[in-house]
């Protein structure tokens, strides 16, 4: 999709409808998958659902280009769909089938679609430093593609984060860092982890300008991205956007972690009253016919159900093919192997142990 002109989007019904389409797809994919997840137990991998955090991926979907790189933390399903990667391949990946985006090898936690330059990973930090390297390659080539890193507040506890902030600013790389601050790293609240619970300010200390926004307002987020992303494309260096958002589900799985004691039922209730999908639907319902919205929604529901049915029918990948995938054994096309032993080194030369430095 092409980058949109920075028009006053908040007034455009069409734009809000497009945002809603993506948000609804993400929300319903998660809800329907959650219902299938247990007790059927046919998707046998840890899944981190992003219910409640749909606004940013939906806004990003409107400004990101096919050649841009996007890498998300393990709560990745929304960003995968935002990058335009196919729903069917995502669902089949969770079922571990050959038709999965990664042949069932990656599952939910390392979900990727290399054709769409979308990646994710289980280990905290990777979703910052892999797109950072991608941004280096984009600047090296002199193209105006950008790399987008989506991180959580937990990344700010890792040491690698500060090496990357420094290197990204030093090389003025086309890197957009989106920090989804949902207040918890797994089951630990931010106040228990950080003496000074400030996130984006730390990026600024390394020379990366930042801003902070309400993460549940898709129109505001789209306006922000439409302002910031062209500056990154123009070579003005990395930027950081921190958003306040909240996951309705627990850290992993479809539950709400209500028995884990790290967050209150009242807090969850407060955030659910600010449900970004429900809020946008309410806005749209004022300007559109109910029937139109319902048509859109039922067509998306049908897509998700059809993806699940297809995944259940699909075949498994062959184990022998899979184990061969660890190495490519391939070389650049210029390589020609002529001779096995160029070396004439048969003699016994003495070592040169280093002297004083």
């Amino acid at each position: 999709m092409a980058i949109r002109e920075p028009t006053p989007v908040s007034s455009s019904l069409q734009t809000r409808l497009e945002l809603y389409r993506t948000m609804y797809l993400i929300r319903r994919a998660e809800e329907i998958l959650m219902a299938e997840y247990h007790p059927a137990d046919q998707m046998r991998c840890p899944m981190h659902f992003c219910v409640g955090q749909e606004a940013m991926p939906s806004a990003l979907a409107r400004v990101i280009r096919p050649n841009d790189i996007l890498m998300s933390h393990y709560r990745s399903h929304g960003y995968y769909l935002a990058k335009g990667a196919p729903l069917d391949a995502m669902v089949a990946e969770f079922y571990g089938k050959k038709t999965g985006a990664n042949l069932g090898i990656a599952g939910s936690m390392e979900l990727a679609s290399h054709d769409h330059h979308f990646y994710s990973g289980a280990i905290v930090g990777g979703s910052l430093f892999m797109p950072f390297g991608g941004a280096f390659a984009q600047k090296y080539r002199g193209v105006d593609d950008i790399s987008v890193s989506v991180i959580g507040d937990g990344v700010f506890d890792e040491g690698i984060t500060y090496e990357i902030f420094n290197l990204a600013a030093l090389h003025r790389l086309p890197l957009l860092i989106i920090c989804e601050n949902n207040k918890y790293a797994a089951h630990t609240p931010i106040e228990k982890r950080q003496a000074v619970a400030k996130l984006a300010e730390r990026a600024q200390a390394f020379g990366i300008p930042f801003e902070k926004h309400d993460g549940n307002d898709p129109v505001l987020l789209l306006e922000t991205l439409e302002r910031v992303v062209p500056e990154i494309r123009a070579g003005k260096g990395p930027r950081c956007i921190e958003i306040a958002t909240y996951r309705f589900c627990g850290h992993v799985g479809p539950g709400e972690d209500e028995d884990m004691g790290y967050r209150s039922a009242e807090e969850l209730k407060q955030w659910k009253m600010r449900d970004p999908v429900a809020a946008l639907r309410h806005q749209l319902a004022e300007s559109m016919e109910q029937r139109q919205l319902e048509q859109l929604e039922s067509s998306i529901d049908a897509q998700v159900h059809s993806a699940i049915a297809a995944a259940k029918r699909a075949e498994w990948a062959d184990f022998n093919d899979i184990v061969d995938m660890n190495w490519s054994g391939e070389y650049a096309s210029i390589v020609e192997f002529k001779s096995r032993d160029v070396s004439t080194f048969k003699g016994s030369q003495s070592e040169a142990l280093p002297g004083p430095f």
Partner: protein
Amino acid sequence: MYRPSKAVNPKHYRGRSDMLSPEVKTSEEIGRSSQLSFAQSINAALRQALELDPGVFVCGIGADTPAGIFGTTKGLVDRFGSKRVFDTPIAEAGLTALAAGAANAGLRPVIIHQRLDFMLYSVDQVVNWMAPWRFMSGGRAKMPVTIRAIIGKGWGQGPQHTKSLHTWFAHVPGLQVVMPASPSDAKGLLLSSIMSDDPTLFIEGRSLFSMQEDVPDAPYFIRLGEALVRRAGKDVTLVSMGSMVPIALQAADALSKANIDAEVVDVRCLMPLDIASILTSVKKTGRLVVAEPGWRMYGAAAEIIATVVETLGEMRSRPRRVAWPQSAVPTSSKLEEQFYPTSDDIVAACRASVTES
């Protein structure tokens, strides 16, 4: 007498049994050559890789300084500019992340650690991200990163400048580990490592850097996973790698004076490992000694001996290994002398192997 417990599955070794007979090479094929040191050969390989592929870049702490990392990067920045040859902060993890992300985006990074010990900050990037990247992608992705890591030895390098953790990395599916022993191999193997589509750890013994050999001027490639018989013999197979190879050749010279004819096999790569060439040699001699520049327990020698014993029906004597004591390396020059195995130790192991049967 040793009997196999189970046949070796050659797939696990990625050795090149079809390449076992050395091709005869003509002087035309090699072309002009020059006497170069090991360090100069590394420099020549980097220069030619930078010429051959605009996606190759070289970075590391001190990469663009006049000293040029023991001369190995000397002059490269003058020739190719600071975009392609550059210094980095003391941020090994960040530097490795840059390489991983850039390689995924299609470049061919070469990163340099003046001591292998320093790269341990980057184990997450190497082991968790680069190594399984292709696998996780379902065979779609490439990860053409070359990591040059230099091992110190002598003049008080001590416990934190001398580690050779080749077996750590050879253990991990997805990585390649190359250990050149001569100047011409250093050039051909480094060019192949850089042009390989798989992540490669290229381990250089600092003690080899001043050794000289006739090295072809033109770029050439040595296929990774092909051992080289550096000295033919019939009495005992002496397998070695990296900085231990010249010492093994000295031992073979000494043994010949005692009418013991050792066949010296330089494995050149630990992964992929050319187990077929080792087996061919041991089938001929019936005896095996492995000399490894690293710690004894769980080492490459242990792996090679185990595989040979598992595979061959009978051997004429017990296999033996010569390796470092299971101790950190002392700094004191007197203690250091006692730490490193010498050609006398290899001679003793080979003599014992021959006199046993």
